[in-house]
């Protein structure tokens, strides 16, 4: 090991970069990307619990329809018999999805890990625009308040589905949650958009401008590449959603008629205007939300690539093809949104073109999967907790990716559209995929965040429980979907076709209760290790990445030396050095 990486040469991080700032400046309105990243992380973990609880409500209703629900029942169900009222069920599905997507997955990937890792991994001392960065976090808070408070306004939170399709979401009398909850939901969404926008501008600038000497684009870790592509996707797609959201707000509050056709009514309610087109919203919404699907998976793929390469002690297989394939996703991602609308009434000829482009976007994912398999081939796999989560990502992503082909095939999609097959697909990608990658990333970078290690044995317990249970919850959804079981149905069993599915749903629900309950293992481990875990050195995993050359946790300004980069981040098992890793900052041996 070269002298550059030994601790002895540096004064402590605090000593070198100590700033005498107040508590508020240091921990609340901090401009430091690491603190902001952790703020994002803690916020998203809290919302993760809320979203999980909402999911339990859904599972309760599906397993025990119209039975009074314990604990949350009285509040959700009102005193009328203690059962979940049907509009509360639609609220549960809407808010579970909204919270998990907008408050958990997107901010935990881009906000928490993007913020924390980008400057560390490219060798910068902070983001390009620290104030913008702070604002991107604090713009989340009004969004939190809007969506959180919407649960307590009259009529409850939004009930139009997370896709918020008009006219349901626009007509005030069409759904109880459309009273005020939907308006608050739209405001929240717009603010999340602003936050992401500020973040993405910052990420792009930082990655392009602030790389350390020697850190060429093709020496960036996959995490950074994926964050970069994500930022581009966000920057180009988000304005569309923001505009669409404002238009829907206008329809609801100002009486404009962008999405309302003439003559639609709900009961005695009057429609103030007309002349709009409901499908317009779907086009605008999915023009953002399809790229958003990649926003929700690409950073996870990047982080998984880093973790797998590190614990397989082997260079990443096909680094450049990986980079090209995610860049390809960035391009193709903009021309596939129509595959969410195959049966929406959109021109059927368009369906064909979208089918072809959608099939093509499966290609980069396939390439990446093969490359991950190539990476563990011939390696020396260390089964640490982060590695287990990363490997399970690969295994689960194969399922989630393959089930996507069914939906891309338009005739098949006619049948499975809006059934549990879709629910199975996106849970395999988002929960079994992204959430597992995020868990892995937390276990992996925890030492860098807090300077302490998380408990590995507990981590493995957490992994095994989560891995088995989540498959028990989500895998049967595939066959439910094959039966035609539609999503968002409060009581599907009164249909003859679906009356035999109750028992399977009860099994899935029991597993879901256990799955959510056992996450407590993770939370206890997380908070216990924050204070009492064994101290980690700079580089506990013997990893090559630049971030591991900084102190743990890094002080203000990150590096206590000027990092100079000599190679890519995946030089594990290089014949040039004795150790099986070769940090990016280690100068090559002098040729004799």
């Amino acid at each position, binding site marked *: 090991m070269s002298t550059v990486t030994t601790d002895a040469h540096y004064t402590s991080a605090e000593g070198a970069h100590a700033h005498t700032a107040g508590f508020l400046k240091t921990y609340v309105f901090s401009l430091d990307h690491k603190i902001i990243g952790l703020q994002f992380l803690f916020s998203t973990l809290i919302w993760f619990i809320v979203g999980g609880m909402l999911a339990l409500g859904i599972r309760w209703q599906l397993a025990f329809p119209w039975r009074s629900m314990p604990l949350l029942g009285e509040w959700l169900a009102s005193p009328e018999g203690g059962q979940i009222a049907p509009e509360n069920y639609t609220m549960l599905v809407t808010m579970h999805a909204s919270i998990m997507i907008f408050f958990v997955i997107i901010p935990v990937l881009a906000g928490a890990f993007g913020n924390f890792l980008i400057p560390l991994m490219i060798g910068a001392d902070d983001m390009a625009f620290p104030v913008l960065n702070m604002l991107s976090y604090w713009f989340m808070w009004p969004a939190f308040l809007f969506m959180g408070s919407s649960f307590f306004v009259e009529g409850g939170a939004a009930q139009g589905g997370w896709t918020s399709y008009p006219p349901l979401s626009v007509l005030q009398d069409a759904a109880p949650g459309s009273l005020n909850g939907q308006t608050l939901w739209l405001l929240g969404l717009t603010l999340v958009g602003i936050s992401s926008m500020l973040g993405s501008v910052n990420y792009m600038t930082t990655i392009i401008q602030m790389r350390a000497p020697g850190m060429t684009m093709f020496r960036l870790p996959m995490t950074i590449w994926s964050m970069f592509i994500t930022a581009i996707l966000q920057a180009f797609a988000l304005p569309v959603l923001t505009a669409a959201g404002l238009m829907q707000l206008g329809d609801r509050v100002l009486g404009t008629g962008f999405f309302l056709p003439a003559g639609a009514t709900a009961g005695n309610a009057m429609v103030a205007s007309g002349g709009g087109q409901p499908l317009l919203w779907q086009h605008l919404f999915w023009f953002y939300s399809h790229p958003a699907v990649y926003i929700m998976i690409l950073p996870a793929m990047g982080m998984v690539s880093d973790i797998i390469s590190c614990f397989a002690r082997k260079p990443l297989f096909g680094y450049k093809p990986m980079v090209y394939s995610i860049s390809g996703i960035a391009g193709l991602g903009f021309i596939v949104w129509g595959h969410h609308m195959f049966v929406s009434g959109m021109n059927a000829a368009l369906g064909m073109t979208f*089918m072809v482009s959608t099939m093509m976007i499966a290609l980069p994912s396939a390439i990446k999967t093969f490359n991950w398999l190539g990476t563990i081939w011939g390696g*020396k796999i260390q089964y640490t907790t982060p590695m287990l989560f990363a490997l399970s990502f690969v295994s689960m992503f194969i399922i989630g990716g393959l089930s996507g082909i069914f939906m891309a095939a*338009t005739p098949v999609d006619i049948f499975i559209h809006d059934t549990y097959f879709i629910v199975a697909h996106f849970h395999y990608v988002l929960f079994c995929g992204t959430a597992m990658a995020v868990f892995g990333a937390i276990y992996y970078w925890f030492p860098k965040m807090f300077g302490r290690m998380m408990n590995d044995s507990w981590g493995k317990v957490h992994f095994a429980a989560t891995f088995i249970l989540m498959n028990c919850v989500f895998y049967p959804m595939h066959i439910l979907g094959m039966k035609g079981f539609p999503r968002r149905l409060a009581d599907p069993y009164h249909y003859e076709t679906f009356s035999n599915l109750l028992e399977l749903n009860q099994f899935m629900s029991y597993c879901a209760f256990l799955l959510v309950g056992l996450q407590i293992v993770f939370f206890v481990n997380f908070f216990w290790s924050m204070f009492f875990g064994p101290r980690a050195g700079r580089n506990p995993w013997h990893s090559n990445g630049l971030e591991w050359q900084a102190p743990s946790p890094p002080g203000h300004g990150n590096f206590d030396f000027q990092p100079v980069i000599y190679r890519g981040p995946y030089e594990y098992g290089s014949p040039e050095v004795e150790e099986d890793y070769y940090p990016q900052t280690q100068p090559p041996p002098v040729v004799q």
Partner: protein
Amino acid sequence: MNRFWSLLFLLVPIGGVATFVVAPYYNIWLPRDVSEQGHKIDSLFMFILWLTGIVFIGTQLVFVYFSWKYEAGTNKQPVKYSHGSHSLEVVWTILPAVTLLFIAIYQMDAWAEAKMRTPGLLPIVEVTGRQFNWDFRYPGPDGELYTRDDIVRTDGNLYLPVDEQVLLRITSADVLHSFFLPNMRLKQDVVPGMDQSMWFKAKQEGQFDIVCAELCGWGHYKMKGRVHFVTRADFDAQLETFRQEQNKVLADPPVVR
């Protein structure tokens, strides 16, 4: 101990395949197909299922094998210091690309049949989704919709002739709904302000569920209907009964309980 994890990963292909093998015995499979065109969608589904199934088993087994073989404690070989292989990359780019493109082109005909080649028929019924019911309007004896002799039913029972190509006009009165006939393999969102059609030919008599498949508000789960496929003669008789019922001017004699 560490190899235990690769056994855990082995559960995925085993359980995954087992679920699909066992499911038909519990009647959790594609619902009975009673339409003429449904078998095309079914066979496409099964085609993709087999294809993805083979890829699924293959990749999972390779994954499990690698994770078993290259565990750090047991793999005594030095690490393969490889940054990738150009030819492999080309192979696993071209192969899936061709396959996927093939699937896409292979599907186009069925799609066109289901959604594009509208038969030149007059609609046999207009289906209107509203919160939270399916309403049906049959043209009366004059065969034309929106005239005085239309027969309107709000009880959720739709009657259609069997063994006959029928064209349905479907629309919505308020919000989005989706007219889903699982046994016909057909689904179409209904959008207020848009007229849409659906056409099919039923092959068997019987009663089947009509499901709403697009979130339409709190009563979404209540939007249940039933389609009855009957012979043409029964259909005409049923419509005549409906017509007489609808033109009723005299109440039935009261039944005193």
